[in-house]
């Protein structure tokens, strides 16, 4: 085998220019896939962090059973009573992997500036507990403040946050007063005074003229209830999501509580849609790169076969079997794949270092401030790209190599 590898390396060196072009195509393809993959990974990580920590949704959410089905039509039928909430919270907190369990109540109604009213939907949360969840964020979220104004407070019930679109629609600004109106759980009309403590960017454009954040007490007062519609569970580590979920489901069932527990992925449609879109683009780029690599390898090996037809004839005459001829060209092609991937890795690393030094910034969708544009080095993508490109290089050589191996020896020896 060493002889064949030696012949392969020397033949590649003999045709340096052609080999360099092919290695260049492979390495550029490798870098393109890994830089884009690294960028999407950065996006996914930050979207995930944003949903779990930034928006205070945690890793798991406990609902009353049926909330995700029938509950969407009539959520008030699926509220968790105060006693149940305490039981669930107490049980969850027994698990050392659970960092925080906080109740939430989503409400909707009309928000008025005294002259004009518009629909709102709001998350009623315990501000101090949400701040704790926010504080667990890493990276961008921990370094930046994503709202204008001041924080909401547990004991200042009337202090609320408005999405910028909603504030604009009603002509409200920081410290402006407003009135929130809604039917209570009993069906009576209720109204509460509110003061705009903060303005924020909505995570979804369609909600920008509707979204509010209110303290849990405000939501419960407006609905005239002590119940909540969900409990947000924050874990110490992502890797515990499945096991904690299973533990909680089993434990709460044993306590006679009919609940359903959803993972953050199931609740974040924006994350899912964004990931699906970028995954599709990633596959598209991967396919294009692979086609370029395959074409480039086939071209290189076909030219090598054509130029070395007489050599193939000589080797066959000397007693080299057909499969060995295929191996010979496959080795050359595999070497191109290995060298191209190694250079691609170095190129990826160089671009990554360049980004670390240059520190470019950008404004992602739904965020108003500039944040660093990063590209992560993803070992999984690097290993996968390496293996795929090397295997692909070998496979791509098979067709021209097979043609060479099955050529008549007499014709091969007579080839000019």
């Amino acid at each position, binding site marked *: 085998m*060493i*002889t064949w590898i*030696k*012949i392969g390396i*020397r*033949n590649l060196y*003999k045709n340096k220019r052609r080999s360099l072009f092919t290695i260049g195509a492979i390495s550029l393809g490798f870098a393109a896939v890994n830089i884009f993959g690294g960028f999407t990974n950065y996006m996914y990580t930050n979207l995930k962090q944003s949903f779990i920590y930034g928006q205070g949704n945690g890793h798991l959410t406990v609902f009353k059973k049926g909330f995700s089905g029938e509950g969407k039509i009539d959520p008030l039928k699926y509220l968790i009573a105060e006693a149940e909430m305490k039981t669930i919270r107490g049980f969850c907190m027994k698990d050392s992997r659970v960092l925080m369990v906080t109740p939430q109540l989503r409400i909707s109604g009309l928000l008025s500036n005294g002259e004009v009213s518009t629909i709102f939907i709001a998350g009623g949360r315990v501000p101090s507990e949400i701040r704790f969840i926010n504080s667990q964020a890493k990276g961008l979220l921990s370094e930046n403040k994503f709202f204008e104004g001041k924080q909401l407070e547990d004991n200042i019930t009337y202090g609320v946050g408005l999405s910028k679109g909603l504030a604009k629609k009603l002509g409200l600004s920081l410290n402006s007063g407003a009135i929130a109106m809604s039917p209570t759980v009993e069906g009576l009309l209720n109204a509460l005074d509110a003061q705009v403590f903060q303005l924020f960017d909505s995570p979804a454009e369609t909600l920008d003229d509707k979204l509010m954040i209110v303290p849990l007490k405000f939501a419960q007062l407006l609905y005239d209830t002590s119940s909540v519609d969900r409990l947000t569970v924050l874990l110490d580590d992502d890797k515990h999501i499945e096991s904690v979920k299973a533990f909680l489901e089993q434990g709460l069932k044993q306590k006679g509580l009919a609940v359903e527990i959803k993972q953050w992925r199931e609740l974040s449609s924006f994350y899912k849609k964004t990931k699906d879109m970028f995954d599709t683009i990633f596959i598209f780029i991967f396919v294009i790169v692979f086609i370029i690599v395959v074409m480039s390898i086939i071209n290189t090996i076909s030219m090598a076969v054509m130029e070395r037809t*007489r*050599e193939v*004839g*000589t*080797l*066959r*005459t*000397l*007693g*080299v*079997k*057909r499969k*060995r001829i295929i191996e010979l060209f496959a080795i050359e092609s595999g070497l191109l794949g290995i060298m191209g991937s190694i250079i691609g890795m170095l190129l990826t690393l160089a671009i990554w270092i360049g980004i670390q030094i240059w520190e470019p910034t950008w404004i992602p969708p739904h965020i108003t401030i500039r944040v660093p544009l990063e590209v992560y080095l993803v070992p999984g993508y690097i290993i996968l790209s390496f293996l795929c490109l090397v295997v692909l290089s070998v496979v791509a050589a098979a067709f021209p190599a097979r043609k060479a191996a099955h050529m*008549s*020896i*007499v014709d091969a*020896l007579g080839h000019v």
Partner: protein
Amino acid sequence: MEEVHKTYYLGETQIEALCGIDLTIEKGEFVAVWGPSGSGKSTLCNLIGMVDSPNSGNILFQGQEIILLSDEERTELRNKSIGFIFQTFNLMPVLSALENVMLPLQIRGVPSKIVREKAMNILDELGIVDYIAHRPHKLSGGQQQRVAIARALITEPALVIADEPTANLDSDNARKIIDLMRKINSLKGTIFLFSTHDQRLLDRVHRQIQLEDGVIVDDKLREKS
């Protein structure tokens, strides 16, 4: 060879390269096949060397009916029992003289250390041990042909088939190469079968087989000189 026929097709044209050849070559012979271009010399050598197959007839090599062998079996038999010398030397351009000579045994999977030693001995015998590290393009025609002969002999084959081995050599080199082959033939009993036009070589063989239009028109033994 018994009643061997070989026909080539060029489009719709049928070319009968060999027409019912009967031929026996014994151990230790030093034979030349000669005749005008297109007479079938190369085809005859290709069939004997198992790089081509006849349309009909039978070819026995060391008692084996080669027509019955698979491609793999023929390839192995070629490697083990036949050495090839080409008019244009056909050395691997990316290998040194030593590596070229080592190649047939490496194909067989013989350990490198043994192969290297054997190749060095042969190159020494052929007087080109000083050029072992040279790539073919750095060697003269005569040196290249010596390397090709060394490559053909390293497997200690029963038969060496040489296609116009002296055609690309000057008189001095041609004479030296012929002497060398005759020496090996007489020392080791290796059969040499030449396809040639070269009178310098024809004058030195023991047996001349003349072909014309795919038929043996003359087969004569010459006195050993």
